[in-house]
């Protein structure tokens, strides 16, 4: 290379360097906020919703990028509290819960209307729930409605067994095998009704509970026996139980129908939902998009095309104006909405993009008013962290590692305990500016919950445990080589900060135990498949976000041996404790039982709790009514643009104040 060419190269490198410095200097000038912070001229919120939604049919998808939009377009019986994410009244003005939380009566407001002006009645909710459970709908979240009586059976396409001789259905209780369920008291919703007033706690205003009906009586009869429809699956169950096999001879199989599901419109504005099991957390699920009310005629008329802008009828504070695919969705305030005068934004533009750096650029340039959770890249925290428009609050979400308890060295509880104990989670949390997760539920998200604590950091004890488990040399001292020889590994997907976390954990084990555990990186969908099949050696990474605001959302991961439980650990005692907790009427007693179950889980250590999620989002100071809440889902009707600078947020908005319930 000649002299001049090399000089040019130096020059151009310098030029790029200058560019970067110039950029940084520009951001350093506005030391209080990140980039421009002038409010937009119109009352239009510009937000990002994530990647292109699969559909804006609220019952089909299960991710937040769709939820953010569905929250604007549809409303349910209850809405998320903008600060705490707990259920607050929406289309239901109030509700009553029976004494063991197995039946709920919702009283609807009389002025609820769809975007085409049709009134919203209890019948629309009955339709919505049945439709979501219909197998052909293909809802990813249908299992949310499984606590409702016969909902799961209907969604699975199961059958009842009818005996023509006695003109009655076979009952579940007659065939219950000797498991923990048999000793449990029967929920009120499956017992004959003596007096409806007895089943509900006395109301202060002396209101009379909703009327009894034939359907209600039917729901309150003992639960019917449910069998799979497919002959192959049924045979498996029948083969396992000779008693059952004998009983079904000469009986008819009757498919479970939509009308068997325990939802009932008592009148136009009263909705009753009967559950198969007590579920005190059920109210917390009501704001979920699965339960947001849909317009029957539109769906029946247009089929899958009902969500097209030309056809769609919605129920929320905003209605669809346009959907430019992969670009933006625009919603405008719906004048038909019952509380339209309290909806402050004229429009919301949801940009359909999911690239964090792009979002941050748009935000900085003043083209976005806020971003969603985890959009601030970890590497930027040093710059963004001190700014007044950076919102970092704990989320109802956890990061943890699974152990494969079915095979390999981690089948031994001592190894699991040791690997957990030798990890300094406080150091991890300090390094990533997050809160350590000490149990299976995030700390401080559920007020009053007596959360148990996992084992503290103690690498000496960890070494002793590992030596006890057989990984020792001739003198009986822990020998790292022996553990390494088992080919134990840590698998993770590369998304977000997962790799730095894994490297930190790896370094901790090396430093505190002397063990080198290999990290294997897998693309997300490949990892999920390996997790579901328990196809990994040792340790794997998972995260979980709350579906509703109750500790049970996290504890229920281990209610079944399958599903999101990727550890192979399952204990009937744990399930019995959870069941008992959910039957318990006293709130504090229920929390204690849940905490007992959580302690049992921590003792068995099928997981390594790592950290509590944090919101890590940006919000312009003039944007009000928008909070970094635990679910990071914002009900849009409360959001507005504040033009008076004196009322702006210089820092995190106050989260503890009672919520502003619009129109209430």
């Amino acid at each position, binding site marked *: 290379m*000649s002299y*001049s*060419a090399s000089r*040019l*190269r130096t020059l*151009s490198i310098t030029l*790029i360097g200058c*560019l*970067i410095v*110039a*950029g940084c200097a*520009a*951001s350093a000038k506005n030391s209080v906020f990140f*980039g421009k912070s002038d409010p937009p001229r119109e009352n239009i919120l510009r937000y990002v919703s994530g*990647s*292109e939604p*699969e*559909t804006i049919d609220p019952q089909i998808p*299960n*991710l937040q990028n769709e939820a953010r939009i569905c929250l604007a377009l549809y409303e349910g019986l209850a809405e998320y509290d903008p600060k705490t994410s707990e259920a607050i009244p929406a289309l239901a003005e109030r509700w009553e819960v029976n004494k063991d939380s197995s039946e709920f009566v919702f009283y609807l407001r009389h002025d609820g209307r769809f975007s085409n002006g049709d009134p919203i009645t209890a019948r629309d909710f009955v339709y919505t729930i049945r439709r979501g459970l219909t*197998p*052909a*709908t*293909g*809802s*990813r979240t*249908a*299992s949310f409605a*499984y606590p409702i009586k016969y909902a*799961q059976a209907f*969604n*699975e*396409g199961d059958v009842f067994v009818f005996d023509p001789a006695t003109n009655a259905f076979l009952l579940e209780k007659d065939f219950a095998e000797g498991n923990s369920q048999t000793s449990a008291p029967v929920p009120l919703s499956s017992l004959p009704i003596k007096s409806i007033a007895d089943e509900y706690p006395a109301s202060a205003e002396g209101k009379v509970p909703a009327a009894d009906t034939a359907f209600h009586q039917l729901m309150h009869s003992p639960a019917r026996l449910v069998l799979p429809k497919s002959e192959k699956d049924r045979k498996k169950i029948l083969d396992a139980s000779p008693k059952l096999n004998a009983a079904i001879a000469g009986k008819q199989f009757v498919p479970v129908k939509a009308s068997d599901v325990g939802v009932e419109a008592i009148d136009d504005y009263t909705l009753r939902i009967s559950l198969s099991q007590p579920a005190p957390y059920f109210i917390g699920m009501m704001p979920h998009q699965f339960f947001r009310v849909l317009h029957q005629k539109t769906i029946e008329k247009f089929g*899958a*095309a009902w*969500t097209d802008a030309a056809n769609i009828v919605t129920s929320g504070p905003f209605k669809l104006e346009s959907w*430019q*695919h*992969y*670009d*933006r969705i625009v919603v405008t305030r719906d004048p038909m909405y019952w509380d339209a005068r309290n909806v402050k934004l004229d429009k919301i533009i949801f*940009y*359909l*993009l999911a*690239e964090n*750096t*792009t979002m941050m650029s*748009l935000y*900085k*340039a003043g*083209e976005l008013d806020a971003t969603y959770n985890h959009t601030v890249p970890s590497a930027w925290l040093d710059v963004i962290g001190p700014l007044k428009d950076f919102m970092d609050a704990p989320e109802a979400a956890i990061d943890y590692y699974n152990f494969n308890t079915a095979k390999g060295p981690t089948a031994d509880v001592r190894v699991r305990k040791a690997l957990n104990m030798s990890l300094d989670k406080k150091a991890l949390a300090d390094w990533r500016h997050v809160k350590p997760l000490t149990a299976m539920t995030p700390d401080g998200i559920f007020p009053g919950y007596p959360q148990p604590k996992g084992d503290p950091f103690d690498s000496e004890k960890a070494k002793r445990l590992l030596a006890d488990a057989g990984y020792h040399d001739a003198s009986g001292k822990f020998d790292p080589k022996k553990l390494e020889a088992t080919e134990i590994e840590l698998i993770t997907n590369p998304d977000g900060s997962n790799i730095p976390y894994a490297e930190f954990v790896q370094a901790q084990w090396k430093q505190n135990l002397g063990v080198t555990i290999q990290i294997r990186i897998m693309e*997300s*969908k490949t990892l*999920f*498949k390996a997790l579901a099949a328990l196809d990994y050696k040792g340790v794997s990474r*998972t*995260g*979980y976000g709350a579906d509703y605001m109750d500790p049970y959302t996290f504890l229920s991961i281990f209610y079944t041996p*399958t599903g*999101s439980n990727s550890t192979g650990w399952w204990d009937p005692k744990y399930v019995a404790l959870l069941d008992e907790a959910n039957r318990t009427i006293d709130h504090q007693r229920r929390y204690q039982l849940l905490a007992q179950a959580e302690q049992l889980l921590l003792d068995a250590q099928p997981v390594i709790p790592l950290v509590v999620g944090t919101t890590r989002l940006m919000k312009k100071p003039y944007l009000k009514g928008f909070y970094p809440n635990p679910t990071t889902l914002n009900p849009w009707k409360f959001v507005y643009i504040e033009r008076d600078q004196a009322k702006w947020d210089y820092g995190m908005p106050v989260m503890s104040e009672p919520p502003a319930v619009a129109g209430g």
Partner: protein
Amino acid sequence: MLRFIIRRVIVIVPMLFIIVSLTWALVLLAPGNFYSGEKKLAPAVEKNLREKYGLDKPWYVQYGKVLKNIARFDFGNSLKYEGQSVNQILMRGLPVSVALGITAYLIALLAGVTMGTLAALKPNSLLDYASMALAMLGISIPNFVLGPLLVLLFSLTLFWFPPALWSGFPSKSLVLPALTLSAIYIAYIARLTRSGMLEVMRSDYIRTARAKGLSERQVVTRHALRGGLLPVVSFSGPALAFLITGTVVVERIFALPGLGNYFINACFNRDEPLIIGIVAFIAVSVLVFNLLVDISYAFIDPRIRY
């Protein structure tokens, strides 16, 4: 000539068949599904989904359906995007990618040919080194670095252009993505032009042209460019195809609703019909553009006959 074209068009069919089959097999082999996520679905929910989308059928039935769809140029419905057909999505993404691709193409041709010609006219001068150094930079800086750098300078410091988002064609929002996309092509074209021109400038017919007493400008524009641009032409055909279809990274950085953005998401989503649709479309465009380039040779270079 006609026979040549017909032969090439016929070859497209088996090529497409192989490409589609390979893609289909790769999607089939990839673990996970369009619905699989961190939270596992309830077994019944998963079963209902598989039935709804025909995933419960044996592989040869699914494969047969794919082939039948391709034969009718109808790629079926997207799995991920409820109620949207792949053809609809293609037609929606294509104009954006074409607008972006052609803008970048024009920038690349204009800047590349100018830089290359200037460099070739005064070889080993400062101008030559400067343009070739710039070209080298264009080749070595990947566009996922160049894009954010341009955003940093032009949108976050100078506030001249928006940092992302699509606002139609033509618009200011197209400038940065097109510039980012064209950088590497400017570089290639500049280098190709330079070497092509250097070679031509030394050839006999240029000497003849000069001997005729033509001005240097006429020599360059009338005679030298025609021959000197031949390598550029053969490069620019496929380049146009790649510019239109290979906008994946740029569309993602600048959040543009084009084919590239759809494609990358389709892969992450395991959206089989959409992946196959886009791959088939890209394959056909590359094959057709190559054919067009071969045909155009005959017009540019009188020495080539089919």
